[in-house]
């Protein structure tokens, strides 16, 4: 049924550290690699080697430039996948019941054999987390690697989403966000984890840790600074004469 569960036993999700992410896209590659071979239809590409390549991805990394009022601009890499919202707007709009939120762990999934590919769930999602696979005609989305996290055939350290397992910077964390004692909840509390587009009212489970304040350019003096006084403050010689002559005109 496409009714959202009244409550979930747990709410699994990701915590993404915008301070740590280096924008390497390793999580994009590992996500596509795992998910094209496992749960549901493969993630197809159209014209992958042609003039207009495109394809289905469950995780995409944006990069934003943020210009503070003073100081240099900051470049922030911004991974975005399904946020497994508590009030997932993509679920109740589904006419077939293919889109659902699990009551046991809060994961939002698509039952691909029921999906008619109407695209309404993708329209309802503010985050662009759902993509209609052009080869299969069904909606694809992040499953939080539901086929890894409970998979007892995998070594225990691999029972996390592929993106988390692969992140070389340790910018992605996986856990139960409904448990205030969990490591991810502690991290969110400690670092001021935030919701994206809170005004949309979807109550996303995934949280984003804001970048830490950057070092300032002002008021900092290095111990070696006195030895690094500028070499030539005033132009001398011919340039000095030219400077003075031009000033007088």
């Amino acid at each position, binding site marked *: 049924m496409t009714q959202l569960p009244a409550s979930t036993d747990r709410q699994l999700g990701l915590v993404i550290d915008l301070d740590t992410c280096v924008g390497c896209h390793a999580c994009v590659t590992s996500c596509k690699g795992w998910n094209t071979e496992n749960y549901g239809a493969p993630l197809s590409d159209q014209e992958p080697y042609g003039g207009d390549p*495109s394809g289905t991805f469950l995780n*995409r990394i944006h990069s934003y430039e943020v210009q503070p009022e003073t100081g240099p601009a900051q470049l922030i890499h911004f991974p975005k996948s399904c946020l497994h919202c508590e009030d997932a707007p993509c679920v109740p709009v589904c*006419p077939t019941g293919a889109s659902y939120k699990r009551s046991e762990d809060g994961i939002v999934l698509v039952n691909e054999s029921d999906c*008619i590919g109407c695209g309404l769930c*993708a*329209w309802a999602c*503010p985050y662009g987390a759902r993509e*209609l696979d052009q080869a299969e005609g069904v909606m694809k989305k992040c499953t939080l690697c539901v086929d890894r996290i409970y998979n007892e055939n995998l070594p225990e350290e691999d029972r996390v989403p592929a993106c988390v397992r692969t992140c070389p910077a340790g910018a992605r964390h996986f856990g139960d966000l409904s448990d205030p004692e969990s490591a991810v909840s502690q991290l969110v509390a400690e670092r001021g984890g935030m919701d994206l587009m809170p005004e949309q009212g979807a109550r996303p489970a995934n949280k984003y840790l804001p970048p830490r304040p950057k070092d300032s350019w002002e008021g900092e003096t290095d111990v070696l600074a006195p030895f690094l006084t500028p070499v030539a403050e005033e132009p001398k010689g011919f340039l000095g004469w030219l400077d003075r002559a031009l000033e007088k005109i």
Partner: protein
Amino acid sequence: MHPAASIIAFTSLSGLGFGLLFWLGIDATPPTGWTAFVFFAIGIGLAGAGLISSTFHLGRPERALKAFTQWQTSWLSREAWCAVAAFAVMGLYALLLIFSEVRVAVLGWLGAWLSVVTVYTTSMIYAQLKTVPRWHHWSTSALFLTLSLAGGALLSGRVSIAMVLLLIAGGLQMWWWRDGDKRLAASGTDLASATGLGGIGAVRSFEPPHTGSNYLLREMVHVVGRKHAQKLRLIALALMMALPVVLLLLPFHHILALAAVLSHVAGVFVARWLFFAEAEHVVGLYYGKR
């Protein structure tokens, strides 16, 4: 949003068809025999053609029947049920009028009500979406309903009612465009709230995730058609409202009435194209677009 031909045809044609069925349903002296056959065939034909064209928008049209299951939550599912119910009731009402020349008023009223509710459910598929602030407003349903009733009145030959409704629909459409232009800004969703980075400073999209396009951009960030939006709005209004009203004011002739209908339908198509092409989905913000 991508203005797909299938959904423009779906919303325009089914709106017109159900509008006509509404007027036929509440008519105290409805046509009978062959005349009834023609009128009901046009109404059911237009509405049916619209619904069939909507299935071309599906990735898996062979599973379309599954769309009847989630009427408790999904406006799309409710629309499917209402449309089928309206067809069944109006079909029976029509058969009795055509073959026995008997008017069962209750059936007519029920069918008329179901026809209007179907148009309302269609409008709610769009108006429910918080992610498209231009659509997420009560006036989207009002616009769909008045356009449907105006077109239906025109098709059923109710000249004076049609003129009044056309003017109301045209006025509402103008206001909907003007007010709609402000709704994205009024929604409070912008790149700062989308990224949560607005507290640091001004946010700008530096680099998209991929060099190529993707489903999200093709489906929800359609910006091509906005260039001529103002001209198209005038064209839509002229065809949808002004020209039909002028033609109806002239001494009545079937050719003029036909021209009024065709002009109105063409205008509704242009307006519906703009309805999709101008609609900004908030996901576009992540791509530095709107």
